[in-house]
């Protein structure tokens, strides 16, 4: 992992806004290692975000970067990718950004299978606005808008993505950066829409309200709440109950949007074989 991260970072934009103990930086480094591994031309990479802590990612990265409005990163990204399919588009979003205000774009982008990747920095809370409950806040967990514990059931990011038609779906923990690298590389390589549910602890707002301890305590807890999907076959239903599989959860081949549109143009212009 001895790579020079600053080839992809805007060093003059540091220090970043993320709190001590936050897992977002781990995800960013994993994204950069994946881009390096794939040897993508820096000028062809677009990183697009919405609003929130995670959505500050693009500002720190030396690519074509776009910081949009709350929830809309995928819709902006769709315009960029469809207008110029040679660009590599990566969207980064928090759990609230991706699944609450951006929920409609999330499911329809999965359905269209446009060749983009969405990394959900999932910390189960609205961090930037001060710790309100999000669509992935665990039932019973506290937020500043759920002071008695959340009574709603959360979304499972991966199940939603699979049901909506994404062609590569993975879950990664920031505890295991090696696995996260592999999963993000897989997502970026997939010719279609990929979703990575990347778990990251918010010690400041989730941890403190729920008395989940330090960053390492929270990472331990996430580890206990999950299991490697490769071991699922050997586990009993009882072992898996209430836990989240980690790894590649779904991978299928399906026609990509821009390729189909290119074929449509050829057909309409009478240039098909």
């Amino acid at each position: 992992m001895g790579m020079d991260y600053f080839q992809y970072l805007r060093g003059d934009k540091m220090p970043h806004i993320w709190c001590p103990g936050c897992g977002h930086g781990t995800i960013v480094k994993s994204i950069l290692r994946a881009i390096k591994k794939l040897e993508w031309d820096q000028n062809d990479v677009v990183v697009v975000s919405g609003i929130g802590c995670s959505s500050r990612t693009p500002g720190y990265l030396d690519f074509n970067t776009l910081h949009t409005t709350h929830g809309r990163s995928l819709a902006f990204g769709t315009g960029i990718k469809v207008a110029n399919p040679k660009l590599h588009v990566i969207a980064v979003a928090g759990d609230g950004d991706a699944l609450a205000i951006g929920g409609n774009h999330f499911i329809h982008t999965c359905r269209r299978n446009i060749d983009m990747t969405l990394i959900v920095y999932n910390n189960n809370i609205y961090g930037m606005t001060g710790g309100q409950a999000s669509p992935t806040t665990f039932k019973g967990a506290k937020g500043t808008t759920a002071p008695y514990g959340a009574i709603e059931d959360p979304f499972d990011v991966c199940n939603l993505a699979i049901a909506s038609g994404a062609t590569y779906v993975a879950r990664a923990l920031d505890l295991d950066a090696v696995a996260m690298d592999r999963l993000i590389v897989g997502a970026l390589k997939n010719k279609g829409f990929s979703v990575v549910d990347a778990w990251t602890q918010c010690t400041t707002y989730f941890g403190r309200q729920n008395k989940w301890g330090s960053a390492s305590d929270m990472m331990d807890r996430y580890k206990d709440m999950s299991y490697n999907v490769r071991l699922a076959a050997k586990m009993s239903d009882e072992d898996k109950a209430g836990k989240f599989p980690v790894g590649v959860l779904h991978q299928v081949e399906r026609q990509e949007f821009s390729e189909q549109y290119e074929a449509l143009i050829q057909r309409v212009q009478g240039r098909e074989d």
Partner: protein
Amino acid sequence: MAEKIVKFLSGNEACAEGAIAAGCRFFGGYPISPSSEIAEIMSRRLPQVGGRFIQMEDELASIAVILGASLAGSKSMTATSGPGFSLMQENIGFGMMAEIPTVVVNVMRGGPSTGNPTGPSQSDVMQTRWGTHGDHPAVVLSPATVREVFDMTVAAFNLSELVRIPVILAMDEIIGHMREKIEFPAPGELKVIDRKKPNLKPGETYYPYEAGEDLVPAMANFGEGYRYHVTGLNHDRTGFPTGNPDLLESGNRRLMEKIVKNHDKLIQYESVHTDDAEVLVVAFGSTSRSARRAIEDARKQGVKAGMFRPITLFPQPGEALLKAASKARKIVVPEMNLGQYILEIQRIVGGKLPVTGVNLVNGEPIQPSRILQAIVGD
């Protein structure tokens, strides 16, 4: 000499053809009456010219997708009506803040809320100017004939590229659905403007929001090697967020001042019998067609009436309006709303003349007789 192409088209059809003639190669939209034909035609026409059409999941996505496409280098457009236009407002503001050229067509229907989906109205006039939050500039065009829809769609693209702003084309349902003979401009007759690109020597830094004399920064497209940052936060010339009070002030002011600076290129209007007009009718869109008849009828009755028709609603053609009103003793403003653009006219004349509204919100056009009544009456 090449034979002129003449067709019998609706306003919505002319809008789609105008867009393609102006170089539009990307359309994202969501169905809504009375604008849906524009999306339908673009879905058929764009692949024929190598462009791309995408039907989005809602209007929030439609405005976002066309802004993204523009950043990637495509001239882009969406079309909608009142409820959809309301949903687009946040990202219209993003486009103004991030200075992204695009075109938003609003074929106005009756409101508020779901209102009168298939009836005409001009009740979004103030929303086209002040729809999104915050101080912001606006360029709004309002055509009155099918040929003018074509021309103003081309103009909307040109002006959006010229001053880097989402331009609003405000039609009303009558103009959108009315059919007229339209003679297309000959190839080469059409002026198409493209965004100003950075022209840098090797080693020079690109400042994506550093403006020259015209106050409009040069725009690189994503993927052209400039690797810059775009945000809806207040930013400095580098494109990165700033909280510096001086830069916030100058940045916000430049967005407004670039419109003033390019005023002459943005303003279009028509003056009819205004040289000697004692009564001036100010009308736009389909209402101007009734007004045109009303001033002729008034002249037959011996009243020297004229019409001033703003084609650019915003920025307001104030100077030209005052010139047209120089001999007038009163101004009549008919509009299919309860009195919106009249507020601008009153502000421009500053109490020097009485300004009377003729207003109708029953989903029917304003009859010339009602305007005539206001012209000849006290």
